[in-house]
């Protein structure tokens, strides 16, 4: 295909996926707080309510637990709900339905039902919204069998992973990053899917592998660019799916580069980097390792309001450069 490149923002790409799915399948509907005439807190749903009507773009009361349960029930009864949490932090109110019901229903009922729902969770820090509006809780949900968890880092993947999530017969949690909503990138017009469970090698390299998620993919790529100028060639893997993990792609890369750093925004302790590290440490790649496995994650603190502190709380490009340089130079 030689169609001219078209750029959309990450938010527009998500909106396009929603519209595409609603047009293709009458069962698909979206629900959430202020997603109708307000257009969503981050203007992701935008004008969809005018295109699809209030019955398919449903404003809910501020009732996260109830809304999540309604999504479960609607999915069981043949509809295809997509629930937007206004901030992923508020999903803490709905954990019961997400974890005890959506994730386990199929298993508990002996495989006799599926729960095809999608939840969208705007996450991450950097907006000055402080500790209760800035969390990255994706590791929680990646810990839960029965769920699938994706975390797109580009407009292209935001659309493609969301469409794959909507197709999926099982519950899929989509962690979006608030700072990425305005990022632009190429987005094909057709209804392509990005497969759930496949990582993407964003840059090839031979001295070290960085496995990064979400916005950290971009910081890792910036760091790789700088390090390349120093002769250090870093392979950057965009994890994209946190459950199920694309173990093969990571193992293969580490066998080649012999060094691994994980860069993620969630709290370092028990964040996704812990799993990647442990995966490698128990895999065949272990024998190839020439250095300890590095984790760069969020500090052990809630996200502060003050912007300088807020930046200090999660990995930034200069820190990634320095630490990966040390890793490759054997200083860790």
């Amino acid at each position, binding site marked *: 295909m030689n169609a001219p490149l078209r750029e959309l923002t990450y938010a527009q790409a998500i909106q396009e996926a929603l519209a595409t799915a609603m047009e293709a399948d009458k069962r698909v509907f979206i629900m959430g707080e202020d997603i109708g005439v307000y257009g969503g807190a981050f203007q992701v749903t935008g004008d969809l309510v005018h295109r699809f009507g209030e019955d398919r773009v449903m404003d809910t*009361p501020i009732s996260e*637990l109830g809304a999540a*349960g309604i999504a479960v*029930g609607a999915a069981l009864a043949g*509809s295809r709900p997509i629930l937007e949490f206004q901030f992923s932090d508020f999903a803490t109110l709905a954990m019961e339905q997400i974890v005890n019901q959506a994730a386990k229903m199929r298993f508990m*009922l002996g*495989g006799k039902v599926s729960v095809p729902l999608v939840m969208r969770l705007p996450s991450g820090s950097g907006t000055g919204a402080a500790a209760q509006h800035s969390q990255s809780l994706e590791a929680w949900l990646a810990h839960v*069998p029965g769920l699938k968890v994706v975390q797109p880092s580009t407009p292209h993947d935001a659309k493609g992973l969301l469409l794959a999530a909507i197709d999926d017969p*099982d519950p899929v949690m989509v962690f979006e990053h608030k700072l990425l909503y305005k990022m632009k990138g190429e987005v094909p017009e057709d209804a392509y899917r990005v497969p759930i469970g496949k990582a993407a090698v964003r840059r090839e390299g031979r001295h070290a592998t960085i496995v990064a998620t979400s916005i950290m993919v971009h910081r890792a790529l910036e760091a790789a660019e700088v390090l390349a100028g120093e002769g250090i060639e870093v392979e950057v893997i965009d994890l994209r799916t946190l459950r199920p993990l694309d173990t093969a792609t990571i193992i293969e890369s580490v066998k080649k580069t012999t060094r691994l750093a994980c860069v993620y925004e969630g709290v370092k302790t028990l964040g996704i980097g812990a799993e990647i590290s442990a995966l490698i440490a128990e895999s065949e790649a272990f024998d190839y390792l020439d250095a300890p496995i590095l984790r760069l994650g969020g500090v052990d603190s809630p996200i502060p309001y003050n912007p300088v502190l807020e930046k200090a709380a999660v990995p930034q490009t200069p820190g990634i450069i320095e630490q990966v340089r040390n890793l490759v130079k054997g200083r860790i």
Partner: protein
Amino acid sequence: MAKPVAAAKSEAASNQRPFYKQFTPEQLKEALRRMCLIRRFEEGAEEAYMRGLIHGTMHLSIGQEASAVGATMALRKTDYITSTHRGHGHCIGKGADPKLMFAEFFGKEEGYCRGRGGSMHIADVESGNLGANGIVAGGIPIAVGAALAIKQQKRDDVALCFFGDGATNEGAFHEALNMASIWKLPVVFVCENNKYGMSVSTERSMAVANVADRASAYNMPGVIADGNRIEDVAEAVTTAIARAREGQGPTLVECKTYRTRGHSRSDRNRYRTKEEIEEWKLRDPIGHFETELVANGIATADEIAAISAAADAEIAAGIDFARNGTDPSPNDVTRGVYTPGNPS
């Protein structure tokens, strides 16, 4: 001088409650059959549990059969129910086969949940039962979601949601009833108020006297039924179902009833008196219904005895079936977590 039988019958008919006209004699006898089945099923399960044949825990609804059956009588197969940890009655009420329930309790592949769910997750999706729930109030928003799907799909089905008095203290109850009401969804909320949430009485856990008193906060009718009288339950719920089908929105029906067994096997009944239990035993819903069926000329004593005997036999056969079922293989431990043939 005793009135001739025919006269007594016609007089009874004129005083008859709508219940006896809304349902055919066959339906009424089927209702009794299901009540008997529930009772025997639970007695059988209890015995198997005590003999160590069934593990885990279970919550018996003995004494509450009228609400389970009365509330499900007017439902179609395509209507949904969501149920609770005390859900055996709801399951049989909605049409499940006791032998497949027993197979579930015995942890067998033949069970409704292939032995993965047990008593607390008993379900029969085929008959519209979306499942018992181990989380108090967990099924309430799920029922509302099913009702939303029904409305979206322009079906005239309803979702009926069972829950206990204790569940109404959960936030999920509040959120779900509010949304059901603002969106006028075809859902019927059936609270089985058996006076206790485990050990805590409604007096100690609720600020109002009746669960139905909470309905006004959601601008929906709140109706109280005698939960030990099937005619009372069925009339209230039938009206609520009709409202729901006609697009007039949800109703909250409170069935006042009582569980004569403990909350679960570990209950030592320290929070209530023997007298209270005995008093309620006298109000047995099955005995009451049998008397009424005879009094209303719908069934003879012989027919009732036959129904009861058939239930005994069915339960005994069900237990046999279950014990001879297939044990799942430990290699299959993760089977059923995800849908196979999954696109991604």
